[in-house]
């Protein structure tokens, strides 16, 4: 919120001087204005949210929806199974995030390198990113999950969990590689010139000067991708992995009650909302830092 006339904290200044009569007057006026703003915000929130709630509750189908989607006694009954499924999502997210980090970094470095020897790899990396950014994740999961086992290659895993994770890693690496690449390209050429003029080779320049700054700069978008990754791990349920989504599906198909889906959604939100808030805070901090640098 950007208040035009915030209630300022004068506690720190009180010891410096005694506020003039005019300043005291202003403080009283500011407090009154703020109180009025809070009142307006509260009233409008109650009105809008109340209208929305009454619209839903008074709709003709509400009674049925309430029973099939918000049956909390059934919800708590299946909570254990869905939570167990969610652990699968979380573990998958952590393992995938680590693999994506490594793979995406390799892709980003290949795409930004100018080395002649790496030309074919640079070309392959570009093609890779183009393909996996352009194909829906669900399709990649289906193709890998059902296609690879069909090849019947000796020693290749048939575990749907591993194949599903591989599909997620393949797709997300393409996204994350592009985020990292944009970070690398955003570092001003003068930093590179300074490093090279000190005799650092181009790979030393990348490692010690460009990458540390680039990665720091793209932390907010990377956290964003982490939230998206956690949600998208739910897609591997289509291969039969018993994650939170699949657990909810099993529970609801048994009784034709959809509350397990809502339960699963709430469980996902319990993790993603704090993570998103944290991302926003990191982003705000990094914008502040960059603005401060620009002003200096």
């Amino acid at each position, binding site marked *: 919120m950007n208040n035009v006339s915030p209630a300022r904290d004068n506690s720190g200044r009180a010891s410096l001087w005694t506020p003039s009569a005019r300043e005291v007057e202003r403080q009283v006026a500011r407090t009154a204005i703020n109180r009025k703003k809070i009142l307006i915000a509260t009233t409008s929130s109650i009105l809008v949210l109340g209208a929305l709630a009454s619209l839903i509750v008074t709709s003709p189908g509400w009674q049925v929806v309430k029973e099939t989607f918000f049956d909390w006694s059934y919800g708590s009954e299946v909570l254990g199974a869905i939570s167990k499924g969610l652990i699968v999502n979380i573990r998958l997210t952590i393992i995938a995030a680590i693999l994506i980090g490594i793979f995406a970094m390799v892709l980003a470095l290949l795409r930004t390198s100018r080395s002649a020897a790496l030309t074919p790899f640079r070309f392959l990396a570009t093609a890779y990113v183009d393909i996996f950014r352009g194909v829906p994740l669900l399709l990649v999961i289906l193709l890998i999950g059902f296609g690879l086992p069909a090849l019947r290659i000796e020693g290749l895993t048939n575990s749907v969990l591993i194949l599903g994770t591989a599909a997620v890693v393949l797709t997300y690496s393409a996204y994350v590689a592009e985020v990292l690449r944009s970070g690398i390209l955003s570092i001003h050429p*003068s*930093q590179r*010139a*300074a*490093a*090279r*003029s*000190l*005799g*650092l*080779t181009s790979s*030393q320049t990348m490692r*010690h*000067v460009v990458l*540390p*700054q680039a990665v*720091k700069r793209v932390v907010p978008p990377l956290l964003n991708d982490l939230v998206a990754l956690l949600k998208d791990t739910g897609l591997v349920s289509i291969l039969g992995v018993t994650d939170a989504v699949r657990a909810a599906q099993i529970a609801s198909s048994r009784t034709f009650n959809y509350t397990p889906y809502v339960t699963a959604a709430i469980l996902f939100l319990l993790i993603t909302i704090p993570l998103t808030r944290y991302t926003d805070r990191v982003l705000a901090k990094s914008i502040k830092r960059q603005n*401060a*640098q620009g002003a*200096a």
Partner: protein
Amino acid sequence: MNVLEVKNLRKCFDDNLVLDDLSLTVPDHTATVLIGASGSGKSTLLRCINLLDSIDDGSIYLDGREISDPGIDVDEVRRSLGMVFQSFNLFPHMSVLDNITLSPIRVHKISKAQARDEAMSLLRRFDLADKADQFPDRLSGGQQQRVAIIRSIAVKPRLLLLDEITSSLDPVLVNEVLSIVRDLKTEGMAMVLATHEMGFATQVADEVCFLKNGKIVERGPASQVISAPQHVDTQDFLQRVHEAGRL
């Protein structure tokens, strides 16, 4: 013995000839000062000497060895050249000490302890010892530029290239930076510097070159080029500098 020899150097950006048949000789322990308006080619010349920009004709020799040879190891050449930029270009994610020791440790393979000791003694010498663990954004412009100079001399270069190092500084901070350069000159460090500070140029220069449109129009000791310019273009330039209150 000449540290640097530039022979018939030409450099163009697209159709624009920025350095036009330019030749320059820098004997050891001397300072060559480049003056001239913005766009006259001073910065480009320094960047070409440091191999940061490629050249389009002519040749450059460092200690008698041609460094404009296409097969040359540019990293190896730059190890014996120091460069300081107008915009400091310190590494913002590293402390002052790490900025200075990066090249000694990574490029010159000096032990960490020794690199730290040498960096600290340079910092002490230029009154910056208390800033060793600070990050660049906590320093004033003058302090940042002094650190950048220390960073460039920490690798004991044969030749120092200074590109308008005081142009982005507050006037009251200019002198603390220039006094370091004066010190280095007294010690016998060979240097080529581009500057708009004519008083300073007069103090340190063994030779002053006035550049216009990528050519050296007039060259000689400061007592001639700055105090009694012969060429009409030099006179005109210095007149304008004078009017701007910089002389």
